[in-house]
């Protein structure tokens, strides 16, 4: 099994954090995984992104040029990475921040108004978890229990109510991806 | 009569001009500029006294004052 993910958005939208959570979860399940951030000009151009590879065997090059899955949190990210998605791949989009939508027909596109859903659920901070929920459901690469275990460890004491919200967001995302 | 104009090309919506204007005439625009920022606008030119305070503090030299 080898799945390549690119996760992209504005600096501060949490694209890099989504990648880290998924990578940690996959590591917990004993998989080989690499997480690689992009730096420099990308940051300024509004497409700060990370590449994550989930694999059973040792991962050679950590660079992703033909992603199986792309999570795009803003329009510049859609414009830059949609063309790279392999045929039959998955494109997860936060439609609130992508006014011009997507173009390709030969891939599975999952568009969710994440910002609005998040603010309805009470905090913009959980946009990441919505995207993670969709990813888990759409790709089955990691189990949601692994992600949740990590979340508990990460913010169990510090921020229990945000933890609760995050857990709901993951479920919300998974349900959304089911339809 | 005075006129304060903000060039949306340069403004990064930092808010320093708003704090500096003695007449509190400046606020954020509805729309976002090409860089994705809500830019500053003078809400009531008639009140503007062309004191140039906003011009002085603007870190992106986005403001022009006429008198």
């Amino acid at each position: 099994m080898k799945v390549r993910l690119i996760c992209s958005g504005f600096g501060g939208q949490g694209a890099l954090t989504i990648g880290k959570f998924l990578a940690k979860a996959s590591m917990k399940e004993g998989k080989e995984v690499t997480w690689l951030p992009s730096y420099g000009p990308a940051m300024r151009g509004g497409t700060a992104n990370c590449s994550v590879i989930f694999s059973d065997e040792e991962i050679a090059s950590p660079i992703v040029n033909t992603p199986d899955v792309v999570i795009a949190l803003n329009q510049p990210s859609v414009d830059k990475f949609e063309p790279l998605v392999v045929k039959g791949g998955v494109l997860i989009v936060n439609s609130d921040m992508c006014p011009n939508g997507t173009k390709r027909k030969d891939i599975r596109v999952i568009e969710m108004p994440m910002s609005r859903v998040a603010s309805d659920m009470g905090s913009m901070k959980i946009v990441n978890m919505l995207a993670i929920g969709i990813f888990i459901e759409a790709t089955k690469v990691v189990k949601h229990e692994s992600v949740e275990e990590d979340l508990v460890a990460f913010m169990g004491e510090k921020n229990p109510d945000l933890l609760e919200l995050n857990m709901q967001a993951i479920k919300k995302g998974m349900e959304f991806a089911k339809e | 009569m005075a006129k304060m104009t903000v060039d949306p090309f340069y403004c990064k919506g930092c808010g320093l001009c708003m704090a500096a204007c003695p007449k509190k005439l400046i606020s954020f625009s509805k729309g976002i500029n090409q860089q994705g920022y809500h830019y500053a606008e003078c809400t009531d030119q008639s009140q503007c006294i062309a004191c140039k305070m906003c011009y002085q503090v603007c870190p992106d030299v986005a403001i022009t004052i006429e008198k």
Partner: protein
Amino acid sequence: MKIIATRPKALSDRQFTYCPGCLHGVAHRLIAESMDELGITKKCIGVCPVGCSVFAYRFFNCDFTSAAHGRAPAVATGISRSRPDSIVFTYQGDGDLAAIGTAEIIHAANRGENMSVFFINNAIYGMTGGQMAPTTLAGMKATTSPYGRDVNDVGYPIKVCELIDSLEAPVFIERVSLLDAPSIIKAKKAVKKALQYNKERKGFSLVELISTCPTNWGKDAVEATNWAKKEMLPVYPIGLIRDKGAK
């Protein structure tokens, strides 16, 4: 109606690469305005440092060079000594001038090189993500002073103007603030005087401009200016330190 304030001609039309609210931009304007008013833009040669202002060469309509970290005063010496009819100025951050560039700034000042040094003190390393600078305040947190700067272990904030004031040759040394409009207006006078003396080949001028770094201070633009007024100005007193040019 007549335009009474707009972008100086010496400024190029490119967008600044600085974060929203970063006062580097104000310092740029004061320099550019002075160049316009003194009519020296075509004679000017600027030297920018390594730091967030590494891109400054894009923002001025005069010849420019980007120097290695801390070496701008030496590069400016080479320029001033080979094209003596040029008006050379350096634009440096606090890590650039007061850490790695300590020997260069002191010896350029001691030789009385004909140049104007504009020194932006934002008490932090901006470009590399917020590490401690020699000007970082006591107890102030930064990525390389995560528990707050311990002055008993890593020393006190360095007062550059006072350090240079112990040297004989410098003609003009002043510390100014960019933290509010009145201060900026006063700062403009000092910036212009530094370039004036340069034009009259009177020697070495240093202007320290107290500035902010909202991004790495974790504050928005306005909070940053307030914090700087409250915390930085007591440590870095504003005012004229020396002016031997007037005589």
